[in-house]
Structures are given as C-alpha cells and as structure tokens.
C-alpha cells in the first residue's frame, strides 16, 4: 500500500513538472504558432539567478525563489521583444528555427560566461524532508510540487476565463486579427503570454533546482523535450491538453520505472515513447487537439 501511494506521488510530481512546462509551451504556441524551444533556457536562467543570489549572500530562500521566478519572467518577455517579435508573422518554420537559435545562443553564453560545469545551489534543500503519515512516508517536495502546480493551473484558468487579457489570449488563438480589431494591442497580448510562460518556467525551475541541487548550461533541455512530448500527446495548442499530457507522461514514466524488470531499466524512455507512439496512432492530433473547422462558417 505504502509503495503504491509513493509511486502515485512520484507520478504526480513528475507530471506536475511536465504540465507546468508544457503549459508554458502551449500558451505561446496557441497564440503565435511558435514552438518555443528556448523555454528550457528560462529554467537555466532561473537556476543561475539562484547562484547569483547566493553569491550576493542573499540567504533568505523566499527572496531567492522570487528572484528566480522574476528573472525568468523578465528574460522570457525580453526574448519575445528581441528575438520573436521580428518573426511574429513569419512562417512557423522561421519561428521554430529562431527558437532553436536563441536556445543555442543562450546555452553557449552560459558555457562561456558562467561555467560548463554544474554549480551547486544548496539554498532550496530545506524544501525536502519526509512527511510521515502513519506508515506512509511522502516527500514534502513532491507534495509541494503537485499542490503548487494545481494552484497555478486554477489561477491560470481564472485569468483566462475572467479577465479581459485572458479572454483576448483565448480569442487570439483563433483569430488574432479580430482581437486587434477590437482594440486590444497585439504587443500586450504577446508580452503577457511570454510573461506567463516565463512564470511557469520559473516555478518549474524552483522544483527542479530543489531536487537536483545544481545548475548547468543544459539544465532545461531534458525537461522541455518532455514538455514538448506532453504537448504533442495532449494536442498542441490546447491548454487542457498540455496539462493532461504532462500528467499522463509522468504517470507512464513512473509506471515504466516500476514495472520494467531491472535488466530493462535503461530502456525506460524507449518504452515511454513507444507507448506515446501507440497513443498517437490512436489520436494523431493528440488527445485534446483543438477542433479544426472544416466548414466555411467562420
């Protein structure tokens, strides 16, 4: 019983991380059709901010967390302004290549100006202890991660449903021009989308750093690849799809880790992606892909 609960917590924590990052990708994709592969670098930016904060002798972990999230948001908005605005209305492929380029430039900047080696950040270790509930032992970090993600999703849903900018963002995913024709400034919608995306990356960064305890230039690569897969499974451009895909991916991953015999342990990812391939044969556009209009009625 304990074992099962622990594995469920594992799956939820994995899933929460993927869902956070997948949401960040999906929000940007839904309004501008851009797969932002530089999203992972926002996690690394957050990580290096923690290093810098520690170097500045800021001990308060609350300050460090807020700084990491804040800098990730600023970095994300800056990227939109500098790199993505010029290709905003260009071909999707141009946007994709731009994102790859930005990602590489940032990784190399970290390599050149910080360090190619991992740098330890110990200030978040306090988030991890075990909670004992009777015979159950749960990691506090996993609990925090799951709860935080759920809270963030609820806040995001509220924002998208009940604020003017939220409505504009949802409308923009279908018809951006008409949103502008209603008088909402396009630049604001894009800036907010990237700000939210950076915020989500910042939150994910806090938990990734608390778990790993170190940052290196390629910190964001793996998580964003997984988030991308989560988006594809859930249906690219669909926000509920991104959340569903994230948690589903987490669950499948943990299930494979648990069920595969020791000898096949190294093939976990292969099995995970195999299952996803089967899923995509069943639903090629992803589980919750936005319905495409086929008629002439607009």
């Amino acid at each position, binding site marked *: 019983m304990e074992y099962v609960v622990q594995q469920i917590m594992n799956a939820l924590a994995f899933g929460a991380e993927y869902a956070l990052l997948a949401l960040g990708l999906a929000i940007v994709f839904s309004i501008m059709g851009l797969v932002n592969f530089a999203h992972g670098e926002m996690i690394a930016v957050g990580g290096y901010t923690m290093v810098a904060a520690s170097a500045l002798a800021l001990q308060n972990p609350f300050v460090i967390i807020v700084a990491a999230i804040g800098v990730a948001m600023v970095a994300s908005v800056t990227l939109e302004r500098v790199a993505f605005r010029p290709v905003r209305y260009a071909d999707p492929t141009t946007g994709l290549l731009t994102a790859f380029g930005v990602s590489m430039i940032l990784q190399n900047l970290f390599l050149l100006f910080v360090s190619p080696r991992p740098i330890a950040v110990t200030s978040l270790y306090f988030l991890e202890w075990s909670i004992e509930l009777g015979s159950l032992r749960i990691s506090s970090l996993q609990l925090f991660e799951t709860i935080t993600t759920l809270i963030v999703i609820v806040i995001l849903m509220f924002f998208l449903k009940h604020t003017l900018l939220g409505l504009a963002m949802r*409308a923009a995913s279908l018809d951006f021009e008409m949103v502008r*024709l209603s008088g909402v400034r396009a630049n604001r919608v894009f800036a907010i989308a990237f700000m939210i995306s950076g915020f989500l990356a910042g939150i994910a960064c806090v938990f990734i750093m608390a778990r790993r305890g170190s940052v290196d230039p390629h910190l964001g690569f793996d998580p964003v690849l997984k988030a991308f897969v989560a988006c594809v499974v859930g249906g690219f451009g669909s926000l509920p799809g991104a959340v569903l895909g994230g948690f589903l991916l987490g669950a499948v991953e943990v299930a494979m880790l648990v069920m595969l015999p020791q000898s096949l342990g190294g093939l976990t990812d292969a099995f995970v992606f195999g299952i996803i391939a089967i899923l995509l044969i069943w639903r090629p556009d992803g589980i919750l892909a936005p319905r495409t209009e086929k008629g002439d009625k*607009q």
Partner: protein
Amino acid sequence: MLNVENLKVFHGLIEAVHGINLVVPKGQCVALLGPNGAGKTSTILGITGVARSTGVISFDERPITEMSTEARIKEGISVSPEGRRVFANLTVEDNLVLGGALKPEGKSERIAYWYKTFPILGERRDQMAGTLSGGEQQMLSIARALMNDPEILLLDEPSLGLAPKIVSQIFEMIQSLRDEKRTILLVEQNATQALRLSDYAYFLNNGRIVAKGRPDELGGREDLMAKLTGIT
C-alpha cells in the same frame, strides 16, 4: 468624419484598390456597393489598417494613415467584418466583453441593451459563439463592434449568406442604428436594400469608383444594377 483620399490597398504585391476617394460625413450612412471582387472588403481592410495601403485616411480631421490597427480602433473606428468572425471559442457574453475592451465604463449596461435588442443572444449568453447560427453570429458581430461605442461603424456584408428573413431583420437593425444618427459605412452586394438605408452611395468596380450619388439617383441606373447582379 471619415475621409479617404487616393486610397490604394495591396494584398502582397497585388493592388486591389486603385486609388479611391470616399467621404463618410458624421451621422450619415454611406453605402459602398459593387459586385464580387470589386475591392469593397479591401477598402475596409485598408481603412482599418489590416491590409497595407497608401494614400491618406483621415478621421475627424486627424490623419490615421500611419497608425496601427489597434490605434485606429482606439480613435473610434469599429468593424463588423466580412464573415462575421465571432470568437467561436468564447461565450456570447465574453465576445461582447472583449468587443468592449476599450470602453470598460457602462459595459454591463451596453451588454444588457444588446440582450434586449437581440433576445436570442441573451438566451444564449453562456453558449460558445461558434454554436450560434449564421444570423445569430451576425447579430453578435454587430453588437460586438458597437461595444466600444465607436464614432463610426464599418459593416462589411452583413447580409452575406443569411436567410431572407434574417436579412430583413439585420437591415431593420441597421435602420435603427441610422435613426440613432450613428455614422455607418455599409458594404453590401444587396444594392436595393443598402440604397434604401443610405444617405449616399459609392459604386465600386474593379478597384475603382465608377459611380457615386444619392440613392435615388443611383437606384435608377439600370447599367449599374445590371453589373451588380450580373444580368446584362
């Protein structure tokens, strides 16, 4: 109020409108008529800044040619575009809320007013706009355009693809807007109806204005009507 001089509108490299002049005086309804592909919608796209254009567009004596689309809307131009383009993934109510993005004050009164004018929209306020019928979407599109309380309303083919009964309902509504002394630029293929509603009309063909005048003058021109309907 709206003054367009030597307007040329481009789609990529193609010039769709070849330098037209057009005036919409305050409080009047001006019709822009013409057959398919005459450049009517392109003219609207040029005025709203969605399509690239050259020439001078001034609004209330202020030049708006250099402004972005959003800035032009803020000046007081509003549009119910061709094909209605309601936000299909938003509820009817949210469509109206977003349509009133620039005028938050008195928003709920205006929404209530539209529910009274079009009771069907009130009944379906929580329904996704994509599930409405074509006629309902057209009502919503016009109501949404008026949520910003604009100085001028550009109406692009409000009767397109609608059942005759709905069409007369839409035109009745435009008539009531006219009675309120709103300024309207009405783009239509349905010349008879549009002429009945307007104070002045321009006839566009192949991207040029080929005739203009008061409705009673233009209405009698058999040659124009023939061009419109394609009956020669």
